[in-house]
């Protein structure tokens, strides 16, 4: 299979009043054509920041400070400019804002967690999807026309907008396409639904509409950020199977971001586990569940209540994640303070290393090439963890 996206040592920082937050720390993974890559982790582990970095939607406080995002875009790669090119791949981090924007929606789309707050409550759902269709059509006709209004909106733009009303006009064909899209995502009576406002939709229906909006531009990569977290299990099952269907039809690649290991197990081909901004383990789905290497992955899997077998409370990871401010980060492994298998070597920061010879399974842990030695143990994470809790 061909790669679609190669994330290499992606590093992102947020500047806050309390200092610099190391949100994403040297994250690397690839997404192949038509595959589903799961990104799991607890809140604050950097999953969403990674996705927003890929989409180029980091909030103002966030910046990508290192690494590269190689995205396969032969046409862009053929044009010359300031951006870095590697064969058919372009580095998204070096693209000018306008080129970045022309990829958004048409090549890379995103679905968010809360459908209610992601739609404009004052416009009909149909119009909002039709706009996405329109943007895609204009982008393919004239890449420059997707100019953001916030950027360089001066007197000239004002005149142009008032003299050329077609700029904000949603054409009849886009509207029809929007209805088709609503039908595609399984919304009954799509023509009537398209005329309704988001508040007239249920959560599950609105999430379907958001997927319709995301696939309007026929993107190749869909970033799904906790798309089913706000939904009931029965609706979650519907949305997941809808995503699978669309993926099978259009060879869409999906990055599924979730805290729910069940969702990942159900949907993804390969998984990356994030902890404290780092990708601590990356593996094909069966390897991750059958032979996890990183103690955090093991702990996380242990914490999931099993519906089919156990009746006793599941084993749990003690304590909580370290803070990600620059001055809070330890020199050694970020997980060492909670790790039941921490050893002397863990006082040095571990590199990401392959677990098997295929290099499809990697972990950022000393246990990749040595077994746990109880005599060398740091005395378990609990002591340090307690100390921090008590501060």
């Amino acid at each position, binding site marked *: 299979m061909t790669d679609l996206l190669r994330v290499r040592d992606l590093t992102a920082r947020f500047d806050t009043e309390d200092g610099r937050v190391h949100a994403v720390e040297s994250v690397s993974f690839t997404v192949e054509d038509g595959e589903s890559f799961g990104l799991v982790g607890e809140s604050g582990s950097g999953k969403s920041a990674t996705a927003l970095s890929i989409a180029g939607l980091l909030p103002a406080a966030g910046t990508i400070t290192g690494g590269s995002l190689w995205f396969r875009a032969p046409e862009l790669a053929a044009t010359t400019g300031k951006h870095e090119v590697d064969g058919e791949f372009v580095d998204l981090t070096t693209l000018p804002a306008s080129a970045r924007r022309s990829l958004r929606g048409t090549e890379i789309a995103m679905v968010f967690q809360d459908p209610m707050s992601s739609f404009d409550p004052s416009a009909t759902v149909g119009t909002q999807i039709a706009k996405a269709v329109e943007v895609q059509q204009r982008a393919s006709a004239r890449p420059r026309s997707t100019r953001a209004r916030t950027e360089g909106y001066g007197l000239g733009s004002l005149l142009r907008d008032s003299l050329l009303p077609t700029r904000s006009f949603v054409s009849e064909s886009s509207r029809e396409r929007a209805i088709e899209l609503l039908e595609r995502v399984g919304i009954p009576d799509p023509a009537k639904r398209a005329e309704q406002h988001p508040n007239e939709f249920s959560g599950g229906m609105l999430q379907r509409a958001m997927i319709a909006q995301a696939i309007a531009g026929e993107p190749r990569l869909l970033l799904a950020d906790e798309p089913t977290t706000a939904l009931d*299990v*029965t609706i979650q099952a519907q949305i*997941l199977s809808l995503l699978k269907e669309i993926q099978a039809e259009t060879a869409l690649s999906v990055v599924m971001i979730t805290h729910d290991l*069940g969702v990942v197990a159900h949907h993804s*081909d390969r998984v990356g586990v994030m902890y404290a901004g780092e990708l601590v383990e990356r593996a094909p789905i069966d390897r*991750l569940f059958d032979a996890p290497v990183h103690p955090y992955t093991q702990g996380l899997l242990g914490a999931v*209540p099993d519906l089919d077998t156990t009746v006793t409370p599941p*084993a749990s990871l003690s304590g*909580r994640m370290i803070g990600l401010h620059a001055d809070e980060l330890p020199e050694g492994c970020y997980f060492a303070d909670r790790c039941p298998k921490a050893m002397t070597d863990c006082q040095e920061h571990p590199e990401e290393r392959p677990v098997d010879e295929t290099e499809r399974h990697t972990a950022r842990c000393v246990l990749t090439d040595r077994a746990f030695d109880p005599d060398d143990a740091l005395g378990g994470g609990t002591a340090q963890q307690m100390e921090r809790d008590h*501060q």
Partner: protein
Amino acid sequence: MSDHPLIGASGLTKRFTDGVSILDRLRGREGSTITAVDDVSLSIERGETVGLVGESGCGKSTTGQLLLGLQEPSAGTVAFDGRPIAAQTAAERRRFRQETAIVFQEPFSSLDPRMTVEEIICEPLVVNEIGTERERHNRARDLLERVELSAVMAPRYPHELSGGQCQRVAIARALALEPSFIVLDEPVSALDVSVQAQILSLLAELQDELELTYLFITHDLSVVSSLCDRVAVMYLGELVEVGPLERVFDAPAHPYTSALLESVPRARANERDRSIDHLAGALPSPSDPPSGCRFHTRCPKIIPPADLEIDQATYRAVFRLRSQIERGESVALDEFDCSDCTATVQQAIEEAIAALETGDRTKALDRLDATFESVCETTSPDEHTTPHRVSCHLHADADCRDHNCE
């Protein structure tokens, strides 16, 4: 030990009326009434944990609040320790309030941001005028220890705590008056999985030590399995199945319970190969619940009339067609493939389609109703007691298999 359950509800019903002002009443206007909880009977024994599960909006939380007397039921009674709470004297009521507690879903918003952790935990003691200041202070320290938080947390404010820590504080507050019954309303839903596991095991420990009785309300079936003795499944205000955990989970009697269980994605390597036969549609509006069995609009095992030979997939398709016609939605006729159906079925569908083409929706609907109307639509199922409490026509009818309902 007394012989009655700690808490027992019978025929509990709660109706909410929407949008009626005094002016509307004077004009004789009636608002829309929603029956949030409909004829719910449930008893909880001492030391037991009952899980109340269902989708959002099914009436789980309202049931919990009715059991605690936080809302007045429209009909039915709740008895605490054998004594109906509606008949309680003021002193009994006060005692009841001390004996019961609740923990809410949202750890941050259920704590007052202007109070310190110690003030939050002591508040129930202050309200009930229990102990001196010194004693309350010591009690707060004990409670913090009990929920595995250190005493240094006491002077902090909620915003300084993590979600898991806030939930521990909320549990400590619930324990302050040494209650015997606690309603846990989605206590772990807002938490990460590792923290969730910590809180669940804390709750299990506390139950053992303090002989607590829990009503555990949740939409997440996977957390039920680790804590509950019995499970009650709720759908649109009604209890559809109540039984021991193992039996409900291993051999669910109600199609809704099976569908709920099947919908939960399992964290396992072979999960990708498991195809989920998911439920269609969403929870219907409680202001206009479906006739007969409320689940019939989504049920994968709806029972066709006894004299009709039809497979479940076709029957479901006919059913969808009927509801589309009824709601006046556009109808996709080309989806129909009746080549394998019996003559009766084909004839009925053809006649209905003919009526539709002339624009006569009522006639089409009547024609379909005449042939396809199910017992699930017309009659509300009785509650059956085998294998355990379940409200479904499938269990009334021993000849079920002859009707292709499997």
